[in-house]
């Protein structure tokens, strides 16, 4: 499969009152055609900033210090604002976190769905209106025909997110960026929206970047997962590799802090807080919270170590000189399951439960 998007050594800083915040510190990843890549991390890890930079919709105090964002081979970082306007909504579209606030309260939803069609496909009012109706029916908005003239506040959260999805898919974009699209919704609605996104992806053949802090959601929708911490990707791999053969202590922490049906007693929590990116610590940014931290972690940043063709992790534990460590019991169990299943030749978590 070819890469539709390649992000190379991306560095982004924000000018703030207190100084320069190094929000993104050398991020590399790629997105293949038709796949779903999940970017996971806690708030402030830089996942939203990364995707905003792909859309070039960063706030005015943000600077892309260096790096490339290659979309079909063209560097988006170098594109003019005018060129970006032709790409946004047409080639790359976005779904936002809170459907309650992401629609204009004083414009009918019909108009809002028709807008990208009018901008990018030169449709006249009637054509755009007809297509918008189709789109709203496609995303499963009940009674769409009569409701096009209504305003956003007359819809429920789940319905609004369907409308936002309709807007994003209006021009059949090549890449769809979904920034925590289900976080603000009820659990039952979450499942419906995820199901809808999966269906639509197969229908219009788009690649999806799915941002979330919810690992449960990831297992459901993603092909590959990138784990972000303090402005860097610390581990990347297929869903199976991340869930059943994680190598980075941060990924261990994330998985261990996720409740499963088997969880007994108290839930694991990663100690401490993420570092202040105004002044990132020397060495591995995760070291202060890492129970497995070594001296070298406080001196040097770990490079990406290769585990398999698809699996990389940035931790000194993978260095040949590093002592063997015992991961938490829960992670060990996962790794053993992974080994066993792979020996038998069938993957573990294909779109199923974790």
């Amino acid at each position, binding site marked *: 499969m070819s890469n539709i998007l390649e992000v190379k050594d991306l560095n982004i800083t924000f000018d703030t009152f207190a100084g320069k915040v190094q929000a993104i510190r050398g991020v590399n990843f790629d997105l293949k055609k038709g796949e779903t890549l999940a970017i996971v991390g806690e708030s402030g890890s830089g996942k939203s900033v990364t995707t905003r930079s792909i*859309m070039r*919709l960063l706030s*005015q105090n943000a600077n892309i210090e260096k790096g490339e964002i290659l979309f079909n081979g063209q560097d988006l970082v170098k594109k003019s*604002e*005018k060129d970006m*306007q*032709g*790409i*946004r*909504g*047409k080639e790359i*579209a*976005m779904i*936002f*976190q*809170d459907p309650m*606030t*992401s*629609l*204009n*309260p*004083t*414009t009918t939803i019909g108009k809002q769905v028709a*807008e*990208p069609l009018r*901008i*990018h496909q030169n449709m006249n009012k009637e054509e755009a209106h007809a297509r918008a109706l189709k789109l709203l029916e496609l995303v499963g908005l009940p009674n769409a025909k009569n409701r096009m003239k209504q*305003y956003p*506040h*007359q819809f429920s959260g789940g319905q609004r997110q369907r409308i*936002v999805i309709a*807007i*994003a898919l209006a021009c059949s974009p090549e890449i769809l960026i979904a920034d925590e699209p289900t976080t603000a919704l009820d659990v039952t609605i979450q499942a419906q929206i995820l199901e809808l996104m999966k269906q639509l992806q197969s229908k219009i053949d788009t690649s999806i970047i799915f941002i979330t802090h919810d690992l449960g959601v990831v297992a459901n929708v993603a092909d590959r997962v990138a784990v972000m911490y303090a402005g860097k990707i610390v581990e990347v791999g297929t869903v199976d590799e991340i869930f059943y053969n994680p190598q980075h202590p941060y990924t261990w922490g994330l998985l261990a802090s996720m409740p499963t049906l088997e969880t007994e007693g108290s839930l694991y929590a990663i100690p401490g807080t993420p570092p202040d990116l105004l002044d990132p610590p020397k060495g591995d940014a995760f070291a202060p919270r890492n129970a497995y931290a070594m001296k070298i972690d406080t001196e040097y940043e770990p490079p990406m170590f290769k585990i398999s063709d698809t699996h990389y992790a940035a931790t000194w534990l993978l260095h040949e000189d590093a002592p063997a460590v015992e991961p938490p019991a829960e992670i060990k169990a996962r790794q053993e399951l992974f080994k066993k299943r792979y020996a038998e030749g069938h993957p573990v978590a294909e779109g199923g439960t974790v």
Partner: protein
Amino acid sequence: MKSYGKYLAKRLFYMLLTLFLIASITFFLMKLLPGTPYTNQDKLSEEQIYIMNEQYGLNDPVPVQYLRYMGGLVTGDLGTSFQFDNTPVTQLLSTRVGPSLQLGAQAVLIGTILGIVLGVIAAMKQNTWVDTAATFTAIIGRSIPNFVIAVLLQLVFGVYLKWFPIALWDGGFRSSILPTIALAISPLADSARFIRTEMVDVLSSDYIELARAKGLSRWAVAFKHGVRNALIPLVTILGPMAVALMTGSMVVENIFAIPGIGEQFVKSITTNDYPTIMGVTILYSAMLVFIILVVDILYGVIDPRIRVSNERGE
């Protein structure tokens, strides 16, 4: 819809209650005023004053006078002026409403339109020198008292440059330009500041980002999605704006010799012309209360969120 009607009826009731209380309080305050309304009272004998009081009904007990006044008020009779050849107050004021309304309307229109433009530009160019300049202009406009601005305009454009009449009202547009500018500064400054704040808020909202993600340019987003949402709350400052205009018109009309309500009010204050003072007080209050009511209704009409919740019967 039924409850919206009920809501309106309630508002109307409060409006009338407010006016009733204002009229009553004003009436009794006027009764407390020292001195008589007659300019040459030193030369008048007790007997003459008694006769004149009798003529104006000032010898009756206060409650009788009060009932008579309130009765007249219902029929639009505001009493008789003590000055100005005993003209009925209603007649006195009605000839003066025209110029005041013309000036006020011109000032609000010009002031808010320019203010909106300034505010939108400032918000779009947030934290640049353009924003600083616009904000500073608004602060200066709000800070300099309107009578100082009026005198400055009069001196520069009337006395030195002779572009406009210094202080002459012929009802034409040319003679209204300087006073309009003097009056427009305050609504301009207020609306610019208000719109900037609202617009900055709106521009940072999620639906603006979504509109940008659709591929619209910053300015297209600002005009298609931003301005309308920022304008809606502007109607809420129409009330305070009207009050500022009434205040402003008192000095500006005086400086430019415009035969309006404000000028009459000042004249009546300095001559103890109680019936006219009361008349203007009630007129101003009625206008303000009316504007507040209109703003309330307007808000429901232009904001779909309120409109629909009213239809639903909230």
